[in-house]
Protein backbone atom coordinates (compact mmCIF):
# COMPACT_ATOMS: atom_id res chain seq x y z
CA UNK A 1 0.00 0.00 0.00
CA UNK A 2 1.54 3.32 -1.04
CA UNK A 3 -1.25 5.66 -0.10
CA UNK A 4 -4.44 4.98 1.76
CA UNK A 5 -7.24 7.49 1.96
CA UNK A 6 -9.61 6.47 4.73
CA UNK A 7 -12.99 8.01 5.50
CA UNK A 8 -12.05 11.46 4.28
CA UNK A 9 -14.74 14.15 4.53
CA UNK A 10 -14.42 17.71 3.29
CA UNK A 11 -17.15 20.29 3.74
CA UNK A 12 -17.60 23.79 2.37
CA UNK A 13 -20.15 25.49 4.56
CA UNK A 14 -23.21 23.30 4.22
CA UNK A 15 -21.98 21.50 1.12
CA UNK A 16 -20.29 18.16 1.69
CA UNK A 17 -17.91 17.98 -1.26
CA UNK A 18 -16.25 14.74 -0.25
CA UNK A 19 -18.19 12.44 2.05
CA UNK A 20 -16.49 9.60 3.87
CA UNK A 21 -14.43 8.46 0.91
CA UNK A 22 -11.86 5.70 1.21
CA UNK A 23 -9.47 4.43 -1.37
CA UNK A 24 -6.11 2.75 -1.49
CA UNK A 25 -3.44 2.73 -4.12
CA UNK A 26 -0.58 0.28 -4.50
CA UNK A 27 2.87 1.12 -5.67
CA UNK A 28 3.20 1.12 -9.46
CA UNK A 29 -0.53 1.16 -10.14
CA UNK A 30 -2.53 3.39 -12.43
CA UNK A 31 -5.78 4.21 -10.69
CA UNK A 32 -8.59 6.42 -11.98
CA UNK A 33 -11.16 8.47 -10.15
CA UNK A 34 -14.24 9.11 -12.24
CA UNK A 35 -17.62 10.63 -11.66
CA UNK A 36 -19.97 13.32 -12.97
CA UNK A 37 -19.06 16.99 -12.67
CA UNK A 38 -19.20 18.22 -9.11
CA UNK A 39 -18.72 14.74 -7.69
CA UNK A 40 -15.79 15.88 -5.56
CA UNK A 41 -12.90 14.41 -7.51
CA UNK A 42 -10.76 17.53 -7.64
CA UNK A 43 -11.60 18.28 -4.01
CA UNK A 44 -10.26 14.85 -3.14
CA UNK A 45 -7.03 15.68 -5.00
CA UNK A 46 -6.81 18.96 -3.14
CA UNK A 47 -7.13 17.09 0.15
CA UNK A 48 -4.32 14.75 -0.80
CA UNK A 49 -2.03 17.57 -1.93
CA UNK A 50 -2.64 19.64 1.16
CA UNK A 51 -4.46 22.51 -0.55
CA UNK A 52 -7.47 21.66 1.62
CA UNK A 53 -7.46 20.05 5.03
CA UNK A 54 -10.28 17.53 5.36
CA UNK A 55 -12.46 17.73 8.46
CA UNK A 56 -12.43 13.99 9.03
CA UNK A 57 -10.41 11.01 7.97
CA UNK A 58 -6.83 10.04 7.44
CA UNK A 59 -4.53 9.97 4.46
CA UNK A 60 -1.77 7.48 5.15
CA UNK A 61 1.27 7.70 2.97
CA UNK A 62 4.19 5.32 3.02
CA UNK A 63 7.60 6.78 2.40
CA UNK A 64 10.85 4.88 2.93
CA UNK A 65 8.97 2.20 4.80
CA UNK A 66 7.44 4.66 7.27
CA UNK A 67 3.71 5.23 7.21
CA UNK A 68 2.46 8.65 8.23
CA UNK A 69 -0.77 10.59 8.15
CA UNK A 70 -0.39 13.53 5.78
CA UNK A 71 -3.62 15.29 6.75
CA UNK A 72 -2.72 18.77 7.93
CA UNK A 73 0.74 18.72 6.35
CA UNK A 74 1.16 22.04 4.48
CA UNK A 75 0.87 21.84 0.71
CA UNK A 76 4.47 22.71 -0.05
CA UNK A 77 5.73 19.88 2.16
CA UNK A 78 3.57 17.40 0.31
CA UNK A 79 5.65 18.10 -2.78
CA UNK A 80 8.79 17.34 -0.80
CA UNK A 81 7.26 14.01 0.25
CA UNK A 82 7.03 12.94 -3.38
CA UNK A 83 3.43 13.69 -4.32
CA UNK A 84 3.14 15.81 -7.42
CA UNK A 85 0.18 16.98 -9.46
CA UNK A 86 -1.20 18.68 -12.52
CA UNK A 87 -4.25 20.93 -12.61
CA UNK A 88 -7.64 20.64 -14.24
CA UNK A 89 -7.58 24.23 -15.42
CA UNK A 90 -3.97 24.51 -16.54
CA UNK A 91 -1.87 26.43 -14.06
CA UNK A 92 1.41 27.03 -15.79
CA UNK A 93 3.67 29.90 -14.78
CA UNK A 94 2.54 32.13 -17.58
CA UNK A 95 5.33 34.61 -18.10
CA UNK A 96 8.07 32.07 -17.66
CA UNK A 97 9.70 29.95 -20.33
CA UNK A 98 8.95 26.28 -20.85
CA UNK A 99 12.28 25.30 -19.35
CA UNK A 100 11.83 27.60 -16.36
CA UNK A 101 8.47 26.00 -15.65
CA UNK A 102 10.08 22.60 -15.42
CA UNK A 103 12.89 23.99 -13.30
CA UNK A 104 10.37 25.34 -10.80
CA UNK A 105 8.96 21.84 -10.66
CA UNK A 106 12.42 20.69 -9.67
CA UNK A 107 12.27 22.92 -6.60
CA UNK A 108 11.91 20.19 -3.94
CA UNK A 109 15.15 18.60 -5.13
CA UNK A 110 17.23 21.76 -5.03
CA UNK A 111 19.10 22.53 -1.86
CA UNK A 112 21.42 25.44 -2.71
CA UNK A 113 21.80 27.85 0.19
CA UNK A 114 21.53 31.57 -0.24
CA UNK A 115 25.26 32.20 0.16
CA UNK A 116 26.11 29.40 -2.23
CA UNK A 117 23.98 31.14 -4.81
CA UNK A 118 25.43 34.57 -4.12
CA UNK A 119 29.02 33.41 -4.19
CA UNK A 120 28.34 31.09 -7.13
CA UNK A 121 29.91 28.16 -5.28
CA UNK A 122 30.50 24.92 -7.19
CA UNK A 123 27.79 23.09 -5.23
CA UNK A 124 25.19 25.50 -6.59
CA UNK A 125 26.55 25.37 -10.13
CA UNK A 126 26.62 21.57 -10.17
CA UNK A 127 23.09 21.39 -8.85
CA UNK A 128 21.84 23.87 -11.47
CA UNK A 129 23.55 21.97 -14.25
CA UNK A 130 22.06 18.72 -13.11
CA UNK A 131 18.65 20.34 -12.83
CA UNK A 132 18.79 21.77 -16.33
CA UNK A 133 19.98 18.46 -17.75
CA UNK A 134 17.17 16.63 -16.07
CA UNK A 135 14.62 19.23 -17.13
CA UNK A 136 15.74 18.91 -20.73
CA UNK A 137 15.44 15.13 -20.53
CA UNK A 138 11.89 15.52 -19.32
CA UNK A 139 11.09 17.99 -22.07
CA UNK A 140 12.43 15.54 -24.59
CA UNK A 141 10.35 12.85 -22.95
CA UNK A 142 7.13 14.79 -23.48
CA UNK A 143 8.28 16.12 -26.86
CA UNK A 144 8.84 19.75 -26.00
CA UNK A 145 12.62 20.03 -26.13
CA UNK A 146 12.68 22.22 -29.23
CA UNK A 147 10.38 24.75 -27.55
CA UNK A 148 12.16 25.13 -24.23
CA UNK A 149 12.86 28.84 -24.70
CA UNK A 150 9.30 29.84 -25.48
CA UNK A 151 6.95 31.49 -23.05
CA UNK A 152 4.79 28.72 -21.67
CA UNK A 153 1.44 30.20 -22.68
CA UNK A 154 2.50 30.48 -26.31
CA UNK A 155 2.23 26.68 -26.55
CA UNK A 156 -0.93 25.13 -27.94
CA UNK A 157 -3.32 23.72 -25.39
CA UNK A 158 -2.36 20.06 -25.71
CA UNK A 159 1.31 20.84 -25.27
CA UNK A 160 0.55 22.97 -22.22
CA UNK A 161 -0.95 19.90 -20.59
CA UNK A 162 2.18 17.94 -21.43
CA UNK A 163 4.33 20.69 -20.02
CA UNK A 164 2.37 20.47 -16.79
CA UNK A 165 3.16 16.76 -16.66
CA UNK A 166 6.86 17.42 -17.26
CA UNK A 167 6.83 20.05 -14.54
CA UNK A 168 5.18 17.65 -12.11
CA UNK A 169 7.74 14.94 -12.93
CA UNK A 170 10.72 17.22 -12.36
CA UNK A 171 10.59 16.64 -8.61
CA UNK A 172 11.00 12.89 -9.21
CA UNK A 173 7.73 12.09 -7.46
CA UNK A 174 6.51 8.73 -6.15
CA UNK A 175 2.90 9.57 -6.93
CA UNK A 176 1.63 11.67 -9.80
CA UNK A 177 -1.89 13.05 -9.62
CA UNK A 178 -3.25 13.95 -13.04
CA UNK A 179 -6.39 16.08 -13.06
CA UNK A 180 -8.16 15.63 -16.40
CA UNK A 181 -5.01 15.42 -18.50
CA UNK A 182 -6.92 14.71 -21.71
CA UNK A 183 -9.38 17.59 -21.42
CA UNK A 184 -9.40 19.60 -24.61
CA UNK A 185 -7.23 17.14 -26.50
CA UNK A 186 -8.10 15.68 -29.89
CA UNK A 187 -8.15 11.86 -30.35
CA UNK A 188 -4.61 11.60 -31.69
CA UNK A 189 -3.26 13.73 -28.86
CA UNK A 190 -5.14 11.52 -26.42
CA UNK A 191 -3.48 8.44 -27.93
CA UNK A 192 -0.09 10.05 -27.42
CA UNK A 193 -1.05 10.89 -23.88
CA UNK A 194 -1.97 7.30 -23.18
CA UNK A 195 1.43 6.03 -24.26
CA UNK A 196 3.08 8.85 -22.32
CA UNK A 197 1.27 7.88 -19.11
CA UNK A 198 2.28 4.25 -19.65
CA UNK A 199 5.90 5.30 -19.99
CA UNK A 200 5.68 7.33 -16.81
CA UNK A 201 4.44 4.29 -14.96
CA UNK A 202 7.36 2.31 -16.34
CA UNK A 203 9.62 4.89 -14.71
CA UNK A 204 8.24 3.65 -11.41
CA UNK A 205 5.74 6.43 -10.74
CA UNK A 206 2.35 5.56 -9.32
CA UNK A 207 -0.43 7.43 -11.10
CA UNK A 208 -3.81 8.59 -9.89
CA UNK A 209 -5.94 10.02 -12.64
CA UNK A 210 -9.13 12.05 -12.83
CA UNK A 211 -10.61 11.83 -16.27
CA UNK A 212 -13.85 12.10 -18.19
CA UNK A 213 -12.53 10.47 -21.34
CA UNK A 214 -13.72 6.90 -20.77
CA UNK A 215 -11.64 5.33 -23.52
CA UNK A 216 -8.49 6.62 -21.82
CA UNK A 217 -9.67 5.55 -18.38
CA UNK A 218 -10.58 2.05 -19.57
CA UNK A 219 -7.33 1.58 -21.46
CA UNK A 220 -5.04 2.72 -18.68
CA UNK A 221 -6.46 1.99 -15.28
CA UNK A 222 -6.00 -1.11 -13.27
CA UNK A 223 -8.66 -0.04 -10.85
CA UNK A 224 -11.30 2.66 -10.96
CA UNK A 225 -13.05 4.53 -8.15
CA UNK A 226 -16.35 6.18 -8.89
CA UNK A 227 -17.54 9.23 -6.98
CA UNK A 228 -21.00 10.74 -7.09
CA UNK A 229 -22.20 13.63 -4.92
CA UNK A 230 -19.06 13.32 -2.85
CA UNK A 231 -19.54 9.65 -2.07
CA UNK A 232 -17.75 6.62 -3.39
CA UNK A 233 -20.36 4.55 -5.17
CA UNK A 234 -18.17 1.88 -6.69
CA UNK A 235 -14.67 0.57 -7.09
CA UNK A 236 -13.15 -2.19 -9.13
CA UNK A 237 -11.53 -3.17 -12.40
CA UNK A 238 -12.61 -1.45 -15.63
CA UNK A 239 -14.78 -4.44 -16.49
CA UNK A 240 -16.57 -4.40 -13.15
CA UNK A 241 -17.16 -0.67 -13.35
CA UNK A 242 -18.50 -0.84 -16.87
CA UNK A 243 -21.23 -3.20 -15.77
CA UNK A 244 -21.97 -1.72 -12.38
CA UNK A 245 -25.62 -0.59 -12.34
CA UNK A 246 -24.96 2.14 -9.78
CA UNK A 247 -22.33 3.71 -12.04
CA UNK A 248 -24.59 3.60 -15.05
CA UNK A 249 -27.28 5.21 -12.99
CA UNK A 250 -24.97 8.00 -11.81
CA UNK A 251 -23.94 8.79 -15.33
CA UNK A 252 -27.19 8.38 -17.17
CA UNK A 253 -29.81 9.08 -14.52
CA UNK A 254 -32.13 6.54 -12.98
CA UNK A 255 -34.74 6.04 -15.66
CA UNK A 256 -32.40 5.63 -18.57
CA UNK A 257 -30.42 3.20 -16.52
CA UNK A 258 -33.49 1.03 -16.12
CA UNK A 259 -34.15 1.10 -19.82
CA UNK A 260 -30.55 0.19 -20.53
Amino acid at each position, binding site marked *: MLIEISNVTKQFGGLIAVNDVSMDVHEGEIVSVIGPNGAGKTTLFNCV*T*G*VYTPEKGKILYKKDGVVRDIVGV*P*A*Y*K*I*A*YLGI*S*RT*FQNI*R*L*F*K*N*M*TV*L*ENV*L*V*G*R*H*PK*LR*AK*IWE*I*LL*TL*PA*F*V*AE*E*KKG*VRLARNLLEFVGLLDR*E*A*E*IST*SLPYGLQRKLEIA*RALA*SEPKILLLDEPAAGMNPSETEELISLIKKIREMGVTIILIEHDMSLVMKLSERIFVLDFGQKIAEGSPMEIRNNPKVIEAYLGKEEAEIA
Partner: protein
Amino acid sequence: MMDIRFRRRVKAAARRWNNMDMRLKWGILLVIACVYPFLASSQYYVHIMNLAFIYIVLSLGLNIVCGLAGLLDLGFIAFYAVGAYTYAILSIKLGLSFWEILPIACVTTALFGLLVGSAAFRLRGDYFAIVTMGYGEIIRILANNLTFLTNGPIGIIGIPRPNAFGFKFEDPSQYYFLALAFVALAIFLTYRFQASRIGRALEAIREDEIAAVSMGVNLKNFKLISFIIGAMLGGSIGVFFASYATFVSPESFSFMESVMVLAMVVIGGMGTIEGPVIGALILVLLPEALRSVSDYRMLIFGALMVFMMIVMPKGFMGWIKPRRILRTAEEENPLVNRDF
Protein backbone atom coordinates in the same frame (compact mmCIF):
# COMPACT_ATOMS: atom_id res chain seq x y z
CA MET B 1 2.36 59.85 -31.84
CA MET B 2 5.56 57.91 -31.89
CA ASP B 3 7.15 57.75 -35.31
CA ILE B 4 6.95 54.18 -36.57
CA ARG B 5 10.38 54.25 -38.16
CA PHE B 6 11.93 55.51 -34.97
CA ARG B 7 10.21 52.78 -33.03
CA ARG B 8 11.44 50.14 -35.46
CA ARG B 9 14.97 51.43 -35.20
CA VAL B 10 14.85 51.35 -31.41
CA LYS B 11 13.52 47.82 -31.51
CA ALA B 12 16.19 46.64 -33.93
CA ALA B 13 18.90 48.14 -31.78
CA ALA B 14 17.33 46.56 -28.73
CA ARG B 15 17.25 43.16 -30.38
CA ARG B 16 20.92 43.40 -31.24
CA TRP B 17 21.52 44.43 -27.66
CA ASN B 18 19.51 41.49 -26.34
CA ASN B 19 21.43 39.00 -28.39
CA MET B 20 24.73 40.19 -27.04
CA ASP B 21 26.51 38.20 -24.40
CA MET B 22 25.39 39.22 -20.94
CA ARG B 23 28.87 39.86 -19.56
CA LEU B 24 29.91 41.85 -22.62
CA LYS B 25 26.75 43.91 -22.34
CA TRP B 26 27.28 44.91 -18.73
CA GLY B 27 31.01 45.33 -19.38
CA ILE B 28 30.30 47.97 -22.01
CA LEU B 29 27.91 49.75 -19.68
CA LEU B 30 30.46 49.64 -16.89
CA VAL B 31 33.12 51.22 -19.11
CA ILE B 32 30.73 53.97 -20.15
CA ALA B 33 29.80 54.55 -16.54
CA CYS B 34 33.47 54.75 -15.52
CA VAL B 35 34.32 57.30 -18.19
CA TYR B 36 31.29 59.48 -17.53
CA PRO B 37 32.56 61.60 -14.61
CA PHE B 38 35.67 62.56 -16.59
CA LEU B 39 33.56 63.77 -19.48
CA ALA B 40 30.90 65.51 -17.43
CA SER B 41 31.29 69.25 -17.77
CA SER B 42 30.39 70.05 -14.19
CA GLN B 43 30.10 68.44 -10.79
CA TYR B 44 26.37 68.98 -11.05
CA TYR B 45 26.03 66.39 -13.79
CA VAL B 46 27.96 63.92 -11.68
CA HIS B 47 25.68 64.69 -8.78
CA ILE B 48 22.61 63.96 -10.89
CA MET B 49 24.10 60.66 -11.93
CA ASN B 50 24.78 59.81 -8.29
CA LEU B 51 21.12 60.41 -7.57
CA ALA B 52 20.22 58.22 -10.51
CA PHE B 53 22.46 55.50 -9.09
CA ILE B 54 20.71 55.69 -5.74
CA TYR B 55 17.37 55.25 -7.46
CA ILE B 56 18.70 52.42 -9.60
CA VAL B 57 19.62 50.47 -6.48
CA LEU B 58 16.28 51.29 -4.88
CA SER B 59 14.34 50.17 -7.90
CA LEU B 60 16.40 47.01 -8.21
CA GLY B 61 15.57 46.30 -4.59
CA LEU B 62 11.88 46.92 -5.14
CA ASN B 63 12.08 44.88 -8.32
CA ILE B 64 12.89 41.79 -6.29
CA VAL B 65 9.78 42.24 -4.19
CA CYS B 66 7.54 43.58 -6.88
CA GLY B 67 8.92 42.35 -10.18
CA LEU B 68 10.01 38.88 -9.16
CA ALA B 69 7.67 37.95 -6.34
CA GLY B 70 4.82 40.10 -7.66
CA LEU B 71 4.07 41.71 -4.31
CA LEU B 72 2.91 45.29 -4.52
CA ASP B 73 4.95 47.14 -1.93
CA LEU B 74 3.87 50.76 -1.52
CA GLY B 75 6.10 51.51 1.44
CA PHE B 76 9.44 50.48 0.09
CA ILE B 77 11.02 53.80 0.91
CA ALA B 78 10.74 52.92 4.61
CA PHE B 79 13.69 50.56 4.26
CA TYR B 80 15.68 53.32 2.66
CA ALA B 81 14.70 55.58 5.53
CA VAL B 82 15.70 53.02 8.14
CA GLY B 83 19.09 52.63 6.48
CA ALA B 84 19.64 56.37 6.22
CA TYR B 85 18.61 57.06 9.82
CA THR B 86 20.68 54.16 11.09
CA TYR B 87 23.74 55.72 9.55
CA ALA B 88 22.87 59.23 10.65
CA ILE B 89 22.23 58.25 14.26
CA LEU B 90 25.04 55.77 14.74
CA SER B 91 27.67 57.88 13.07
CA ILE B 92 26.83 60.96 15.11
CA LYS B 93 25.92 59.44 18.46
CA LEU B 94 28.40 56.56 18.53
CA GLY B 95 30.98 57.79 16.05
CA LEU B 96 31.00 54.56 14.07
CA SER B 97 32.43 54.61 10.57
CA PHE B 98 30.65 54.07 7.27
CA TRP B 99 32.01 50.56 6.87
CA GLU B 100 31.02 49.56 10.36
CA ILE B 101 27.51 50.88 9.99
CA LEU B 102 26.84 49.40 6.57
CA PRO B 103 26.52 45.80 7.84
CA ILE B 104 24.66 46.99 10.95
CA ALA B 105 22.19 48.85 8.77
CA CYS B 106 21.75 45.79 6.57
CA VAL B 107 20.87 43.73 9.63
CA THR B 108 18.52 46.39 11.01
CA THR B 109 16.63 46.76 7.75
CA ALA B 110 16.53 43.00 7.29
CA LEU B 111 15.01 42.62 10.74
CA PHE B 112 12.60 45.41 9.99
CA GLY B 113 11.68 43.71 6.71
CA LEU B 114 11.14 40.47 8.59
CA LEU B 115 8.90 42.18 11.13
CA VAL B 116 6.79 44.00 8.57
CA GLY B 117 6.72 41.07 6.20
CA SER B 118 5.62 38.46 8.67
CA ALA B 119 2.70 40.63 9.69
CA ALA B 120 1.74 41.73 6.21
CA PHE B 121 1.89 38.38 4.44
CA ARG B 122 -1.26 37.27 6.15
CA LEU B 123 -3.01 39.60 3.76
CA ARG B 124 -3.28 39.30 0.04
CA GLY B 125 -3.38 41.45 -3.02
CA ASP B 126 -4.46 45.01 -2.54
CA TYR B 127 -4.76 44.70 1.21
CA PHE B 128 -1.13 43.75 1.35
CA ALA B 129 -0.30 46.83 -0.70
CA ILE B 130 -2.25 49.01 1.68
CA VAL B 131 -0.52 47.65 4.74
CA THR B 132 2.85 48.32 3.15
CA MET B 133 1.69 51.85 2.48
CA GLY B 134 0.70 52.10 6.13
CA TYR B 135 4.08 51.05 7.49
CA GLY B 136 5.82 53.41 5.07
CA GLU B 137 3.79 56.27 6.50
CA ILE B 138 4.32 55.12 10.09
CA ILE B 139 8.08 55.20 9.65
CA ARG B 140 7.87 58.70 8.25
CA ILE B 141 5.64 59.89 11.07
CA LEU B 142 7.93 58.28 13.64
CA ALA B 143 10.90 60.04 12.08
CA ASN B 144 8.91 63.24 12.37
CA ASN B 145 8.01 62.80 16.03
CA LEU B 146 10.73 60.81 17.79
CA THR B 147 12.60 64.03 18.18
CA PHE B 148 15.19 62.77 20.66
CA LEU B 149 16.46 60.31 18.05
CA THR B 150 15.72 61.88 14.71
CA ASN B 151 15.56 65.57 15.53
CA GLY B 152 12.00 65.64 14.20
CA PRO B 153 10.99 67.44 11.03
CA ILE B 154 14.17 69.50 11.03
CA GLY B 155 16.22 66.40 10.35
CA ILE B 156 19.76 65.48 11.22
CA ILE B 157 22.50 67.63 9.80
CA GLY B 158 26.26 67.31 9.71
CA ILE B 159 26.41 63.58 9.11
CA PRO B 160 30.06 62.55 8.71
CA ARG B 161 31.31 61.50 5.30
CA PRO B 162 32.85 58.08 4.75
CA ASN B 163 36.56 57.26 4.61
CA ALA B 164 38.31 54.51 2.72
CA PHE B 165 42.00 53.71 3.14
CA GLY B 166 42.74 57.18 4.43
CA PHE B 167 40.84 58.70 1.53
CA LYS B 168 37.94 60.92 2.43
CA PHE B 169 34.92 61.16 0.17
CA GLU B 170 34.13 64.80 -0.45
CA ASP B 171 32.71 65.91 -3.76
CA PRO B 172 30.22 64.12 -6.05
CA SER B 173 32.82 62.63 -8.37
CA GLN B 174 34.51 60.91 -5.47
CA TYR B 175 31.23 59.45 -4.33
CA TYR B 176 30.47 58.47 -7.90
CA PHE B 177 32.51 55.29 -7.90
CA LEU B 178 31.19 54.25 -4.52
CA ALA B 179 27.66 54.60 -5.88
CA LEU B 180 28.65 52.72 -9.01
CA ALA B 181 29.92 49.88 -6.84
CA PHE B 182 26.53 49.70 -5.11
CA VAL B 183 24.82 49.59 -8.49
CA ALA B 184 27.11 46.86 -9.79
CA LEU B 185 26.58 44.83 -6.66
CA ALA B 186 22.80 45.19 -6.88
CA ILE B 187 22.79 44.13 -10.52
CA PHE B 188 25.00 41.15 -9.78
CA LEU B 189 22.80 40.11 -6.86
CA THR B 190 19.66 40.29 -8.94
CA TYR B 191 21.25 38.24 -11.69
CA ARG B 192 22.36 35.57 -9.28
CA PHE B 193 18.96 35.33 -7.66
CA GLN B 194 17.04 35.33 -10.88
CA ALA B 195 18.86 32.30 -12.24
CA SER B 196 18.60 30.26 -9.09
CA ARG B 197 15.96 28.26 -7.30
CA ILE B 198 15.13 31.32 -5.20
CA GLY B 199 14.46 33.59 -8.15
CA ARG B 200 12.43 30.94 -9.92
CA ALA B 201 10.42 30.26 -6.80
CA LEU B 202 9.66 33.99 -6.49
CA GLU B 203 8.57 34.22 -10.11
CA ALA B 204 6.44 31.14 -9.64
CA ILE B 205 4.74 32.85 -6.69
CA ARG B 206 4.10 35.89 -8.87
CA GLU B 207 2.53 33.82 -11.60
CA ASP B 208 0.41 31.40 -9.61
CA GLU B 209 0.57 30.91 -5.88
CA ILE B 210 -1.33 27.66 -5.79
CA ALA B 211 0.72 26.04 -8.52
CA ALA B 212 3.86 27.28 -6.78
CA VAL B 213 2.83 25.68 -3.50
CA SER B 214 2.14 22.44 -5.26
CA MET B 215 5.68 22.53 -6.62
CA GLY B 216 6.98 22.67 -3.07
CA VAL B 217 7.51 26.41 -2.76
CA ASN B 218 6.97 27.61 0.80
CA LEU B 219 5.11 30.81 0.07
CA LYS B 220 5.71 32.53 3.36
CA ASN B 221 9.43 31.87 3.51
CA PHE B 222 10.11 32.90 -0.04
CA LYS B 223 8.03 36.05 0.20
CA LEU B 224 9.98 36.90 3.32
CA ILE B 225 13.26 36.24 1.53
CA SER B 226 12.26 38.61 -1.25
CA PHE B 227 11.26 41.20 1.30
CA ILE B 228 14.48 40.89 3.24
CA ILE B 229 16.73 41.05 0.19
CA GLY B 230 14.83 44.04 -1.11
CA ALA B 231 14.99 45.67 2.32
CA MET B 232 18.73 45.15 2.57
CA LEU B 233 19.33 46.69 -0.82
CA GLY B 234 17.14 49.64 0.11
CA GLY B 235 18.76 49.98 3.51
CA SER B 236 22.33 49.86 2.27
CA ILE B 237 21.72 52.53 -0.33
CA GLY B 238 20.00 54.51 2.41
CA VAL B 239 23.30 54.46 4.29
CA PHE B 240 25.01 55.73 1.18
CA PHE B 241 22.41 58.45 0.74
CA ALA B 242 22.81 59.71 4.31
CA SER B 243 26.57 59.86 3.97
CA TYR B 244 26.32 61.56 0.61
CA ALA B 245 23.75 64.18 1.47
CA THR B 246 25.14 64.57 5.04
CA PHE B 247 21.55 65.44 5.91
CA VAL B 248 18.43 63.37 6.48
CA SER B 249 14.91 64.53 7.20
CA PRO B 250 11.50 62.84 7.07
CA GLU B 251 10.71 64.79 3.94
CA SER B 252 12.99 62.58 1.84
CA PHE B 253 10.95 59.50 2.69
CA SER B 254 7.39 60.41 1.80
CA PHE B 255 4.84 58.10 0.26
CA MET B 256 5.45 59.86 -3.04
CA GLU B 257 9.02 58.59 -3.02
CA SER B 258 7.83 54.99 -2.65
CA VAL B 259 5.48 55.52 -5.51
CA MET B 260 8.19 57.07 -7.67
CA VAL B 261 10.44 54.07 -7.15
CA LEU B 262 7.55 51.84 -8.05
CA ALA B 263 6.97 53.93 -11.15
CA MET B 264 10.62 53.42 -12.12
CA VAL B 265 10.24 49.66 -11.88
CA VAL B 266 7.00 49.61 -13.84
CA ILE B 267 8.05 52.08 -16.50
CA GLY B 268 11.30 50.22 -17.09
CA GLY B 269 9.69 46.82 -17.10
CA MET B 270 9.04 44.70 -14.05
CA GLY B 271 10.86 41.47 -13.45
CA THR B 272 13.72 42.30 -15.77
CA ILE B 273 17.09 43.60 -14.69
CA GLU B 274 17.60 46.23 -17.33
CA GLY B 275 14.07 47.56 -16.73
CA PRO B 276 14.49 49.13 -13.29
CA VAL B 277 17.85 50.56 -14.38
CA ILE B 278 16.31 52.23 -17.41
CA GLY B 279 13.23 53.31 -15.47
CA ALA B 280 15.34 54.96 -12.77
CA LEU B 281 17.44 56.74 -15.38
CA ILE B 282 14.35 57.99 -17.19
CA LEU B 283 12.57 59.26 -14.10
CA VAL B 284 15.64 60.95 -12.61
CA LEU B 285 17.00 62.44 -15.81
CA LEU B 286 13.70 63.45 -17.42
CA PRO B 287 12.86 66.23 -14.93
CA GLU B 288 16.44 67.45 -15.37
CA ALA B 289 16.04 67.50 -19.12
CA LEU B 290 12.82 69.43 -18.69
CA ARG B 291 14.56 72.04 -16.57
CA SER B 292 14.40 74.56 -19.42
CA VAL B 293 10.64 74.70 -19.03
CA SER B 294 11.08 74.95 -15.29
CA ASP B 295 7.58 75.85 -14.17
CA TYR B 296 5.86 73.32 -16.32
CA ARG B 297 8.28 70.47 -15.92
CA MET B 298 6.34 68.47 -13.33
CA LEU B 299 3.17 69.09 -15.31
CA ILE B 300 4.76 67.65 -18.43
CA PHE B 301 6.35 64.91 -16.39
CA GLY B 302 2.97 63.74 -15.10
CA ALA B 303 1.46 63.81 -18.56
CA LEU B 304 4.41 61.86 -19.95
CA MET B 305 3.95 59.18 -17.32
CA VAL B 306 0.36 58.65 -18.41
CA PHE B 307 1.47 58.68 -22.02
CA MET B 308 4.28 56.15 -21.46
CA MET B 309 1.93 53.72 -19.77
CA ILE B 310 -0.53 53.94 -22.63
CA VAL B 311 2.11 53.46 -25.32
CA MET B 312 4.06 50.75 -23.56
CA PRO B 313 1.94 49.08 -20.91
CA LYS B 314 4.55 46.39 -20.34
CA GLY B 315 7.23 48.91 -19.57
CA PHE B 316 10.17 49.84 -21.73
CA MET B 317 11.66 46.35 -21.74
CA GLY B 318 8.34 44.78 -22.67
CA TRP B 319 8.01 47.34 -25.44
CA ILE B 320 11.30 46.60 -27.15
CA LYS B 321 11.43 42.86 -26.63
CA PRO B 322 10.09 40.67 -29.42
CA ARG B 323 6.85 38.96 -28.54
CA ARG B 324 8.24 35.46 -28.42
CA ILE B 325 11.17 35.71 -26.11
CA LEU B 326 13.74 33.33 -27.46
CA ARG B 327 16.29 33.15 -24.80
CA THR B 328 18.11 29.94 -24.13
CA ALA B 329 19.12 28.57 -20.80
CA GLU B 330 22.74 29.48 -21.45
CA GLU B 331 21.96 33.14 -21.99
CA GLU B 332 19.85 33.16 -18.89
CA ASN B 333 22.48 31.48 -16.79
CA PRO B 334 25.87 31.22 -18.45
CA LEU B 335 27.09 28.98 -15.67
CA VAL B 336 24.98 26.09 -16.76
CA ASN B 337 27.08 25.01 -19.67
CA ARG B 338 30.42 26.13 -18.41
CA ASP B 339 32.74 23.45 -17.14
CA PHE B 340 34.39 23.82 -13.83
